[in-house]
């Protein structure tokens, strides 16, 4: 099994393969020779320079490595080539199993505009908007006028908030169109964007699907991902506090119907907006494993990557819809290298200190370590910290406990932001929608914090300072290279 990805998802897939007795082949860019997915693999091959376009997006190189290493299957993870139908097709041509849907299903459901047509055909409710990509800003203005502002611009090929812009009036539209299109082009290799009506205070709720090659398809409950910043998911949870059995069944059945209509196979997610009246609107389908899949694993007791691999081996699903029962509550925090005090700018760099949380109910999908330099070439996600507990309230309190234990030194992270969200009364009461976090940030209220005696802080600082020299040695050794340090010392001795 070749894992055509990096970071925590590559490590997560490698672990699943090991558990199933499958040999693993890692690939890495020049920025990632020291990344943690490499030392967990049985084989490892260099792809190319750091930029993704020259490494993780090079399907041709990846297939060449698959051939060279005698690998007959490729797991694409998420991002990079995971939703690239041409790559899926190239795999098929090369006789290599692509762990994901067939290229045909990906083409129908992976493009947002085509998926909307398929959704219409399957009788699925969706948000009013353009079904096809917009030719230019003029067309955008025309369509927007038809459905009424506010509207949302979206990349046809993309996800993760990239190439998205909310537009509140015609005057802003041309600039927003250019920005969204350029970002889409850069991120997904296609500048195609479309627009749709902006639903007021919607919740983002999605259904996880798993389909086999024999027409079997189950839904594994929902995830709520309403806590977003700039259309990027920040916190995900399962189940949603507002989805009951009946709504879950309706959304699940609709999602499965759509997948089956396109001959979908393997893991996929159908995203919906849900309004205050519990109406749900089809948003898009993600034709891959998602970042936030762990919360579904924790509440269903299943392992989605194992299921993906078994489905790809041609096995029928081992579980029926009626056997899937949600239990407990899971919350995931996406921990990013970014600076919440400075407009959330990415904060790559050296992790000089890492104290990770643990204990009951805490799962961390993470591929960073003390001494690792977070490269600036990729997504700045450091870790997915997940808390599971019998109830939502306990899961929140468990996550707060884990965040208190967590220290990442040397770079800025959004850990403090999570503490603030999880202590916020609206979040704790599940009064959230996709605009919730932006409003909370606009409030700018300081987080109530435990008092720490000033004298104790001063003493701790003094004690650490008094040991700075030996500290510096340790940091150097941990970080750069011991060879280099040894050499330098020998040099000094001369």
């Amino acid at each position: 099994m070749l894992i055509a990805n990096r970071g925590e998802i590559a490590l997560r897939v490698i672990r699943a393969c090991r558990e199933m007795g499958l040999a693993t082949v890692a690939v890495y860019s020049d920025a990632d020779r020291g990344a943690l997915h490499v030392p967990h693999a049985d084989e490892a091959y260099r792809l190319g320079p750091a930029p993704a376009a020259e490494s993780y997006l090079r399907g041709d190189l990846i297939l060449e490595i698959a051939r060279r290493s005698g690998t007959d299957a490729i797991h694409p993870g998420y991002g990079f080539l995971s939703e690239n139908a041409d790559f899926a097709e190239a795999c098929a041509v090369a006789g290599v199993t692509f762990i994901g849907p067939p290229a045909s299903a990906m083409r129908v459901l992976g493009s947002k505009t085509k998926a909307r047509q398929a959704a219409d055909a399957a009788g699925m409710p969706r948000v009013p908007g353009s079904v096809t990509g917009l030719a230019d800003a003029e067309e955008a203005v025309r369509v927007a006028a038809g459905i009424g502002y506010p509207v949302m611009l979206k990349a046809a090929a993309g996800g993760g908030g990239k190439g998205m812009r909310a537009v509140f009036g015609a005057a802003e539209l041309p600039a927003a169109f250019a920005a969204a299109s350029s970002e889409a082009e850069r991120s997904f290799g296609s500048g195609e964007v479309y627009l749709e009506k902006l639903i007021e205070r919607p919740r983002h709720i999605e259904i996880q699907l798993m389909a086999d090659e024999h027409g079997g398809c189950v839904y594994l409950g929902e995830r709520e991902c309403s806590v977003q910043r700039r259309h990027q998911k920040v916190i995900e949870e399962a189940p949603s506090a507002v989805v009951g059995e009946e709504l879950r069944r309706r959304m699940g059945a609709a999602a499965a119907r759509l997948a089956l209509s396109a001959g979908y196979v393997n893991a996929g997610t159908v995203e919906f907006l849900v309004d205050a009246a519990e109406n749900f609107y089809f948003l898009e389908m993600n034709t891959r494993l998602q970042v936030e899949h762990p919360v579904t694993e924790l509440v269903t007791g299943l392992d989605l990557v194992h299921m993906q691999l078994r489905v790809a081996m041609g096995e029928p699903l081992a579980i029926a819809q009626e056997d899937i029962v949600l239990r407990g509550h899971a919350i995931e925090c996406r921990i990013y290298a970014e600076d919440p005090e400075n407009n959330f700018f990415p904060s790559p760099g050296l992790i000089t200190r890492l104290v990770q949380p643990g204990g009951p109910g805490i799962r961390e999908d993470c591929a960073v370590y003390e001494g690792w330099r977070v490269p600036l070439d990729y997504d700045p996600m450091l870790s997915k910290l997940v808390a599971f507990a019998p109830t939502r309230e306990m899961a929140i309190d468990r996550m707060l406990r884990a965040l208190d234990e967590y220290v990442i030194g040397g770079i800025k992270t959004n850990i403090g932001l999570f503490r603030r969200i999880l202590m916020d009364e609206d979040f704790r009461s599940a009064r959230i929608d996709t605009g919730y976090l932006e409003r909370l940030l606009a409030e700018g209220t300081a987080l109530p914090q435990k008092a720490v005696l000033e004298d104790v802080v001063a003493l701790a600082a003094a004690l650490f300072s008094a040991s700075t020299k030996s500290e510096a040695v340790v940091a150097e050794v941990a970080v750069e290279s011991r060879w280099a340090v040894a050499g330098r010392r020998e040099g000094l001795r001369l």
Partner: protein
Amino acid sequence: MTVWLDVGGKKVRVSLPGSREGVVAAEVDGRALTADVRMLRPGVMSLVVEGRQYRCVLDGDGVVIDGRRFGFEVEDPRSLQGRRGAGAGTDGPRAVKAPMPGRVVRILVKAGDEVGQGQGLVVIEAMKMQNELKSPKAGRVAKVAVAVDDTVGSGDVLVVVE
């Protein structure tokens, strides 16, 4: 041994005895403070003061306790200069610097343009995200120091607004 510190803008003098592990009788600005000190691993320390336990983690020029980070600076008592000059006032020219390494994607102004506070000046892409840098004040663009597709480092001056 005495350490002069600036902790969150406040000057503090800490006197430490020769032995700095176990029960340590220190003084903070002349106030006696006895702590039971245990280094767990480099940069991670447990302090017990009057029964209260503090797990202290060193993070560069800060110490993290109970999830809060307290920045500090060690000061050289022999230096009379103190801190560097009080810094540029809000009235003079202000340099907009790159907050992190990245690549210049778009430049939204040119030298001589009048800009309002919060108006976008330059868009930088880093870690696959485009970030718009805004003007810190209303004024006139004195200089645009970069061009599209330039790679910039953290702290590099991008635009000067006067």
